[in-house]
């Protein structure tokens, strides 16, 4: 027996053996991990930091997109922490590309599937650096050529993989290593790029924003996009405990407050028009969101008169979002920020009869 088959037998003994064909029974009783009632597209053992929002977001996307998918992954945290050679956390075909060309690679994969007469959906993953900045022109081209691809941007608002440099997605006044808060500046001087509007301007069938704090909503958006023949785009707000400097246990809390204060509106656009928003009945002050994060710590320096001004500026940005997208909502539909994540005995309340 060759080394390779020995290794394979060893792995199978350890992890169980999938059937050679769907109608064949499995050889051994499945382990508890194998028997999970969900698709494990992104497995344990990846090297993401504790409390990584991006790892969680990617897992949630894979759960409801897989298994009949293949992934083109731009350079970034996600690529690095899932594929430490010679291992891979992915359980679907997965291809790494450069920082700037994941959408182009995905376009080629999609064309190949089409040529082979297969229906396998192609996903393209990138962080905010690869999406907002470096891979933006490739993404624009992919959308314009109308490829049948779901592009997911994991937005953690800076280049975290290379050491927390500002990106065009970094929010105003956040401190990063290339926009440090200090005497000259209160963190990043510029605004967060409104990428979703630019994407929507390509007149694509579906573009949406989601947050890891609302997994039911996130997965609904993925399923909806998966059902569309054509280019779709999803940006997922994914807190980074390391770069945002918050406790690893607070990842969801931070993401939730970002939505609840209006700084990260969860909206859906079809053919460029807003078709759905997640309303905020009782908007929180942005300081509730900012105070959890070290990257905004300078905004709470009582001796700096600029701190109050910047806090007010961010509040004004949130208010602007609330007004622009009508996030206050109408009627008493309970499915808003205070209801969509509700749980009861036996699981989420959303979607129950």
């Amino acid at each position, binding site marked *: 027996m060759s080394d390779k088959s020995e290794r394979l037998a060893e792995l199978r003994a350890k992890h169980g053996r*999938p059937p050679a064909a769907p109608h064949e029974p499995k050889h051994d009783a499945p382990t508890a991990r194998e028997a*999970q009632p969900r698709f494990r597209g992104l497995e*344990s053992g990846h090297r993401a930091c*504790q409390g990584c929002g991006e790892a969680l977001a990617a897992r949630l996307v894979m759960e409801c997109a897989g*298994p009949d998918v293949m992934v083109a992954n731009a350079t970034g945290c996600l690529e690095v922490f899932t594929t430490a050679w010679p*291992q891979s956390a992915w359980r*679907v075909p997965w291809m790494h590309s450069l920082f700037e060309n994941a959408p182009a690679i995905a376009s080629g994969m999609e064309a190949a599937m089409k040529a082979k007469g297969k229906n396998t959906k192609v996903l393209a993953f990138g962080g905010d650096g690869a999406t907002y900045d470096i891979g933006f022109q490739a993404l624009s081209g992919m959308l314009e050529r109308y490829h049948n691809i779901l592009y997911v941007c994991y937005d953690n608002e800076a280049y975290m993989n290379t050491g927390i440099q500002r990106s065009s997605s970094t929010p105003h006044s956040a401190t990063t290593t290339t926009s440090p808060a200090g005497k000259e500046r209160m963190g990043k001087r510029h605004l967060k790029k409104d990428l979703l509007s630019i994407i929507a301007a390509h007149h694509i069938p579906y573009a949406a924003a989601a947050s890891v704090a609302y997994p039911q909503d996130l997965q609904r958006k993925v399923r909806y996009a998966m059902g569309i023949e054509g280019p779709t785009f999803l940006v997922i707000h994914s807190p980074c405990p390391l770069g945002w400097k918050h406790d*690893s246990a607070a990842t969801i809390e931070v993401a*939730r407050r970002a939505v609840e204060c209006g700084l990260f509106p969860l909206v859906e656009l079809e053919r460029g028009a807003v078709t759905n928003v997640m309303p905020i009945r009782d908007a929180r002050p942005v300081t509730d969101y900012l105070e959890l994060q070290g990257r905004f710590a300078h905004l709470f320096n009582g001796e700096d008169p600029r701190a109050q001004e910047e806090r007010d500026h961010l509040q004004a940005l949130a208010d602007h979002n609330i007004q622009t997208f009508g996030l206050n909502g109408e009627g008493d539909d309970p499915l808003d920020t205070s209801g969509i994540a509700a749980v009861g005995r036996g699981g989420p309340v959303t979607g129950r009869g």
Partner: protein
Amino acid sequence: MAILTRGAYAEPGTTLDFKTGNWRSTGKPVHDHVKAPCHAACPAGEDQQAWFAHLQAGHPKLAWRELVQANPLPGVTGRVCPHPCETACNRAAMDGALAIHNVERWLGDKAVAKGWAYPVDAPADDAPIVAIIGAGPGGLSAAYHCLRNGLRADLYEALPEAGGLLRSAIPRTRLPREALDGELNRLLALPGITLNARTRLGRDVTVEGLLSTHAAVILAPGCQSAKAWDVDGAVPADLHEGLHLLKEFMDHGQFPKADKVVVHGGGNTAIDLCRLMKRAGASEVTLVTASGLPGPDTAPDDIINVVPRELDEALEEGIEIIDHATVSRLVMKGSKVTGVEVVSLKKEPGKDGRKRRVAFEGTERLLSVDMVVPCIGEAVDPEGLQGLIDGTYVWAKDAWGRLEPENVHVLGDARGDRGTVAEAIGDGRLAAQAIAAKLAGAPDPEADTRLEMGASGLNLSYYMPTPRHAPAKVPVAERRFDTEIEGDLGRAAALAEANRCLSCGNCLACDNCWTFCPDNAVIKTVELAQDGSHYLFDLDYCKGCGLCAHECPTGYIQMVPED
């Protein structure tokens, strides 16, 4: 084209070879079923969360069976209990405490209507017999829990019927006779319980005599004699003590004639009396109480000790309440009272740190009255209890109600440190358990020392805001003496209330940990795991980020240091 099924497509990700579990530096997640505050606060020892869980699943019968594990009289306590469970409920700060007492009552009534059988087996014919003095709520609970522990029970009751205070001193507007009899008769019909009515302690039986014929004796006599009351030695000739007045009214349906009444006291009897006298025709009824009314500035130990609902209804009905005050002088014409002087007071800490009541000079005011009724509490009737009674009460040695003589226990109001039906019911259970353990040669049952889950341990983001369901009430103008004032909650509202339960400290199986773990280190299982939940932590991969603990709505997941 091959059809791909879930999990069949690729070989397992080989990062499974890389155990990220050794990254944990601060702690690991564990499941910890701590006490819900309602359970911790319940003097009867009910696990409200457990029966609400059955109701959530749509099984009222299972819910009732769970409830009567601790309290055999839910139809009664659902009506008369001051429900400390609702005061403790963590939902109170969110959108109102659960209507626990309404649901409890609904379950109790349902069980009577449907004839659901109590979860007890008939004891063996030669099972030891426990003698119980007094067939009030405490005695009845003790008898029931004797059965649950494989013992038989002989009840001795001085009156012709069982029920104690429930029958003699709680108005029908709060506890209709049908509701009381419905539950009591079912309980007394259980095989193994014998009721000896018209049998008075001291006259017909003695503690020593019972000890010689029974395995143990439980004293549940309640408090039957009025405490002496006077104001600086003055006592009106026609003095009516509150509880006696109430009992007489329950028997004969009449009060002595009076137009302006002052009731002095601060318990349920005082409030009941005020309301009944007002309804019976008194034009002005004033309650003078040393305690405070509930409010943000009132210390919890200073709040008037009555069922909150009853207090609200009394205020609705126009009862005047003078709080933080006492009667300082009686104005007498001959031996008849014509007025009372009332002075403000408050509990103030003294030199030794203990709080005492201090009257404030210069706050005296005069009320003109026809009648003044003291309702300052009752004492144990000493007949037959010589040697056991110490001052006013029969003080117990421990939580099990033990007294100096072996195999004699005391419970309920007679203990002196009790005052509610629920406490008596809880005492009955503990005494029966302790007796059963002793007879079996076992040590005392272990006390539940689990911690209590406070509101800060929950993650309230995951609960849908839902206002509390309230039953209909008879309007003030239509309230009489026989019709119950608070209505039935109804099935729909009872089930909806159950769904408001936050399940503090216990797993809801909501999937949050499973959904949110970035490392796929929470494994969901079909079978119950050892700790009673459906989730396992795969510590081979858990990096210890603490996300699951933070997002667990019920606080069931805790981060603890590595061993």
